[in-house]
C-alpha cells in the first residue's frame, strides 16, 4: 500500500522537480515521500503482526476443535490406520496456519493496494485504470490459476512417488541387512533410481509450468509499462499536467510487484485447501461408540465378568467380526488369527472403544449401551499395539495412567513390565526424557511402557493387543508370566500371533473368516 504511495509520490516529486519550480513548491511532494517511506515500513510490520495474530487465533480454535472431534473417534472410528490419520490431522492444522498467515494476509493487502492504485492511476489518466485492472487480473488470478491447473497432475505424481519412496526406504531401513546378505542390493537400488526418474520427470514438468508463469507475470508487467506510457502520451495531448506523467507508470509497476509476491503463494494453495477439507471431513465421521446421556451405575465390587452375545462388528457397513464369547475372573485368554481377521476389533469391543452393530456386550450384567466408555474403562484396561509415547519424562509417561503414583510404584511397574534393565541402564532413571521426533524407545520397549501404565491401574479386566511383538523370546515369556501372576484373580485377554504366547493360557479364541470362536488350548496350530 504505502510502497505504491512511495513510488507514486517520488515519481511526482522528480518530474515536478524537472520542471524546475521554486524549491518551496516541492515541500508537499517531499513531505509525502517521507511520510510514505515511514508508513511503508511501519505498515508492513503492523500487517505482518496483525495477520499472524489473527491466524493464530483462528488456528488455535481450529486445533481445539480438531482435538474435540478426534476424541470420540480415536482409535476405532478412524479406520485401520488410525495413528497416521491423527498424525495427518496434526500436520494439517499447521498447514492451515500457513495458509492463513502466509497467504491470506499478503493477499488482502495486495488486493487493497491494487484497488487503490487503480483508483489513483484512473484519476490521473482514466484509461490506465483499465489496463492496470487487466494486468492485475492476469498476474493475480489468470496465471496462478493456469499454473495450478497445469501442475495438478505433476503434483499427484510427485505425491505417489514420495509415498513409494517412503515405503522403499522404510523397508530398507528395517531389513537392509537381509538385502545386503541376499545380494539383492542392486535390484533395490535400481528400483529407487526408477522412482527418482519418475520424480524428476514430474518435477521437471512442474518446474517448467511455474517458470513459464513467472515469465508471463514479468512480461505482463513490462507490457503494462509500455501500454501505460502510450496512454500517458495520449493524455498529455488531452491536457494532463506534465508533472504527473511518471506517476501512473511507477504506481502500476509497484502494484504489480506487490501482487507478484502473492501469485506464487496462490499456486501452493491447493495443498492447504485439501488440508482444510480433510479436517472438515473429520467432523462428518460417525463416532464408533454412542455415549448414553444418563448412564447406569456400575457396582464397584463387581468381578468384571464380560459377556458378548451374538455381536456383529462392522466398519463402514462391512461386517468384520461376529461371535459370542465371554471372559471372567481367572481367565487367561489368547486371541489368534491371521492379520486383518478381527483380533483387534474383538479387543476394542471389550473396552467400549467400538459398539457392535448388532448383539450386546455386558459387564457384571450391565449393558455396555447404558454405560459411558470412561465407565467401562474404569474396569477394562486396553493396551494398544503401539502405545503412544508423550514428549515428557518416563515418569510423566507413566503418570498418564495414575497421576498420584509414587516413584517407587513407577519403578515397580517398570520392573514388572520387564523394563527394569532398560531403566537401570538410564543414568537419568525415571527422569529420562522420551518422545519427540524419535521416541527414544524401540517398538518392544514402547509396548512394555504401555503394559507398565496398565499395571499401575490394575483393572479388573485387561486387554492387550500384541504385547509381545518385537520382544525377544525370554523377555516375552517373562512379561507374560508377570501378567498372569498379577491378574491371576482377574481377567486377561491377549491378542497374539505367536504360538509361544499360548503357553499358560486357560482359554483360546481364534478369529477366522469373520468369526471369533473358542477352540481348545491344546489343539494344534490352526493355520
Amino acid at each position, binding site marked *: 500500500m504505502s510502497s505504491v504511495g512511495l513510488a507514486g509520490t517520488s515519481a511526482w516529486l522528480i518530474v515536478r522537480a524537472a520542471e*524546475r519550480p521554486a524549491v518551496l513548491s516541492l515541500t508537499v511532494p517531499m513531505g509525502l515521500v517521507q511520510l510514505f517511506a515511514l508508513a511503508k515500513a511501519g505498515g508492513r510490520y503492523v500487517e505482518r503482526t496483525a495477520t*499472524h495474530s489473527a491466524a493464530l487465533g483462528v488456528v488455535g480454535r481450529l486445533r481445539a476443535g480438531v482435538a474435540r472431534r478426534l476424541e470420540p473417534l480415536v482409535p476405532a472410528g478412524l479406520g485401520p490406520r488410525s495413528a497416521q490419520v491423527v498424525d495427518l490431522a496434526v500436520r494439517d492444522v499447521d498447514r492451515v496456519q500457513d495458509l492463513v498467515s502466509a497467504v491470506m494476509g499478503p493477499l488482502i493487502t495486495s488486493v487493497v493496494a491494487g484497488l487503490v492504485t487503480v483508483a489513483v492511476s484512473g484519476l490521473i489518466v482514466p484509461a490506465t485504470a483499465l489496463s492496470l485492472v487487466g494486468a492485475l487480473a492476469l498476474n493475480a488470478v489468470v496465471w496462478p490459476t493456469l499454473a495450478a491447473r497445469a501442475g495438478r497432475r505433476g503434483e499427484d505424481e510427485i505425491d505417489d512417488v514420495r509415498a513409494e519412496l517412503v515405503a522403499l526406504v522404510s523397508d530398507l531401513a528395517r531389513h537392509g*541387512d537381509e538385502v545386503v546378505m541376499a545380494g539383492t542390493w542392486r535390484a533395490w537400488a535400481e528400483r529407487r533410481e526408477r522412482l527418482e526418474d519418475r520424480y524428476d520427470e514430474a518435477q521437471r514438468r512442474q518446474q517448467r509450468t511455474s517458470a513459464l508463469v513467472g515469465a508471463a507475470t514479468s512480461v505482463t508487467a*513490462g507490457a503494462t509499462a509500455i501500454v501505460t506510457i502510450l496512454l500517458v502520451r495520449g493524455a498529455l495531448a488531452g491536457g494532463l499536467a506534465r508533472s504527473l506523467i511518471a506517476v501512473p507508470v511507477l504506481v502500476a509497476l509497484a502494484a504489480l510487484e506487490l501482487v507478484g509476491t502473492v501469485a506464487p503463494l496462490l499456486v501452493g494453495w491447493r495443498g492447504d485447501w485439501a488440508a482444510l477439507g480433510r479436517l472438515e471431513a473429520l467432523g462428518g465421521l460417525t463416532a464408533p461408540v454412542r455415549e448414553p446421556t444418563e448412564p447406569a451405575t456400575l457396582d464397584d465390587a463387581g468381578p468384571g465378568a464380560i459377556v458378548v452375545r451374538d455381536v456383529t462388528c462392522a466398519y463402514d457397513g462391512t461386517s468384520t467380526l461376529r461371535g459370542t464369547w465371554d471372559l471372567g475372573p481367572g481367565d487367561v485368554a489368547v486371541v489368534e488369527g491371521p492379520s486383518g481377521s478381527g483380533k483387534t476389533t474383538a479387543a476394542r469391543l471389550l473396552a467400549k472403544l467400538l459398539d457392535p452393530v448388532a448383539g450386546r456386550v455386558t459387564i457384571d450384567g450391565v449393558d455396555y449401551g447404558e454405560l459411558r466408555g470412561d465407565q467401562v474403562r474404569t474396569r477394562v484396561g486396553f493396551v494398544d499395539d503401539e502405545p*503412544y509415547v508423550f514428549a515428557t519424562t518416563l515418569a510423566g509417561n507413566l503418570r498418564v495412567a495414575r497421576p498420584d503414583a509414587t516413584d517407587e510404584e513407577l519403578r515397580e511397574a517398570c520392573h514388572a513390565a520387564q523394563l527394569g534393565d532398560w531403566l537401570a541402564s538410564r543414568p537419568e532413571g525415571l527422569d529420562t526424557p522420551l518422545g519427540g521426533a524419535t521416541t527414544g524407545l*524401540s517398538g518392544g520397549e514402547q509396548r512394555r511402557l504401555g503394559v507398565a501404565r496398565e499395571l499401575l491401574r490394575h483393572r479388573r479386566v485387561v486387554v492387550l493387543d500384541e504385547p509381545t511383538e518385537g520382544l525377544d523370546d525370554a523377555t516375552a515369556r517373562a512379561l507374560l508370566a508377570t501378567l498372569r501372576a498379577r491378574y491371576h484373580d482377574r481377567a486377561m485377554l491377549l491378542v497374539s500371533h505367536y504360538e509361544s504366547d499360548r503357553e499358560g493360557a486357560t482359554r483360546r479364541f481364534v478369529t477366522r473368516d469373520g468369526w471369533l470362536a473358542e477352540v481348545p488350548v491344546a489343539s494344534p496350530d490352526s493355520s
Partner: protein
Amino acid sequence: MDSERPSALLARLGRTSPLVRAALLVAGLTSAFTTAAVIAQAVAIAAALGALFHSSHADLAPSLVALGVATLVRAASLVVGDVAAARSAAPVRRDLRARLVDRAVRHGYTGPADSLTQLATRGIDAVELYLSRYVPALVTAVVAPVVALAWLVATDPLSGVIVGLSVGLLPIFMVLLGLEAKGRMEQRWREQQYLAGYVGDVVRGMAVLKAHGRSGDAVAHVDEVGQHLRRATMATLRVAFLSGFALELLSSLATALVALVLGLRLVNGTLTLSCALAVLLVTPEVFVPLRRASANFHGSASGVAAAGELLDALEVPVPPEGTAPAPHVVPTLGVAVAASPGEPARLVTIPPGARVAVVGPSGAGKTTLLRSLCALRPAPAGAVLVDGVDLGRIDRDEWHRRVAWLAQDPHLSGATVRDAVLAGATTLDDRAIAAAMSELGLSLDLDRPLGEGAGELSAGERRRLALVRCLVREPLVLVLDEPTAHLDPLARQLVDAALARRTMTRVVASHRAIDADVTIRLALPDRDAPARRSEVESV
C-alpha cells in the same frame, strides 16, 4: 535456533556433493543477468518518460522497443534461472539419497529405522527445496544488490553513495536489534516450541489418554494451551519481525532520500529527468532481493536442519572394502570376545563344522556379534578371523555368498512362497525347497501368494520359512539369531533336529543354554556388578 551459518553449510554440502557448487554458479550468473535486464527496463522506461516530458510528440519507438526487448530478456533469464536451479538441485537430491541409503544399508545407521526413513525422504526433500529455492534467493540477495549498486554508482555517484550507505547500515541495524532481542527470543522460541509440541502430543496420544480416562480433561486443556501458544508465538514474532521492519525502513528511507536528493538536483538543473527516473526505478531493486531472502529465512530452517543432519551421517568414515577371496570350504573362525567392554579381548577359535551357542540376556550384544560374523558391522571387540584372515580384508559380497543369516525379525519379500525363499538366488530347485520345508514341519504350497510382508502367514511360519531360505543356500556358515523364538515346543524340536543334522559351522544366538561345542556367554555391561562378565566355554 542453534543452526549453522548458510555459508558454512553450503561449503560442507559442496564438499560432499560437487554438484552444489555448479548450482551456485548457475544461480549467480542468472541473477546477474536478470538484474541487468531489470536495469535495462528501468533505463528504457525513464528514457520514454523523459522524452514525453519534453514533448508529447516525441518519438517513443526506440525506447519502447528497448523496453520490450529488455522485458523479454528478463523473462527468459527468469525461466533459465528457475529451471536451472531445479535441474541442478535434482541431481543433488538423487546423489544424496543414493549415498545416504547405500551407506545406511551397507554400513549401518546409528539411529532408529524411522529416523533414517524420515531423513532419506522428507529430510532430503527439504534439502532439495532449500537448494532449489532458498539458496538461489540467497545468491540473488548477494549478486543482484551488487550489480544494481554498481550501476547506480556508475550512473549517479551521489545516489549510489546514499544507497550504498544504507545497505552498509543494514548489518549495524540488525545487530542493534538482534543483540537486544536474541536472549529473550531464544527463551520464547523454546517456550513456543514446547507449547506447539504439547498440543500435537495430546492429539497424537489421544488413544492412550482415552484408555486411562484422561481424554476429556486433555481436550479442555488444549483450548487453554492454544491461548498461551498464541501469546507466546506473538511475543516471538513481534521480535522476529523487527529485522524485517529494519530492512523495510532502511529501504524505504533510502528510496525517499534518493528521490529528495534527485529532486533538488533536478531543480538546480544538474541532472536530466531520464537519468533521475532510471535511478529512482533501480534503487528499490537493491533491496528487493534482500527482503525476499529474509522472508525466506524462516522457511529454510527445516532444510538447513535436515542438511546438517544429513551431512553428519554422510561424513562418518566407512571402512575400506576388502579384496581377499572368501574360502571355498568350511573355514576356521576366530572371534574376539572381551570379558567386559574396554578390557583386552581374547580370541575364541571356532573349528570348522562346530556348533556355537551365543547366549546372554537381551542387550548383551548377541545380535551385534552375529552381524559382525556376517561382515555387516565391525566386530564389537576387535576382529573376526576367517582362516586367520581378518574378515574386513575379505570381499564382502563373496563372503555373503558363503554365509546365511537369520535375522531376529526376518523379512520375507516376494509374491509367492517360492519367491520369498529364492530371494534373488536362481540356482535352487523346488525339490530342495520342499525338502527343507518338510524338515521344519512346514506344509505350504510354493505358489501360495504372500501378502505384504508375508502377513498371510503366522509369525511362526514366517520364521521357519526364513530359516528354509537360509538352509537351502547350503552356506559354509549358518548364523542364526534365535531360530526358535516364538515357536511352539513341537516346531522348536524340528528346528533343533534340522540344525543338528547339518555339517557346516552353525552359530546360534539364544537366551537359553543349548547343546553346543563352543558356548560364548555374553553379559550385560554393568559397572556396578563387575562379577557379571562375558566368558567362553569349549567342550
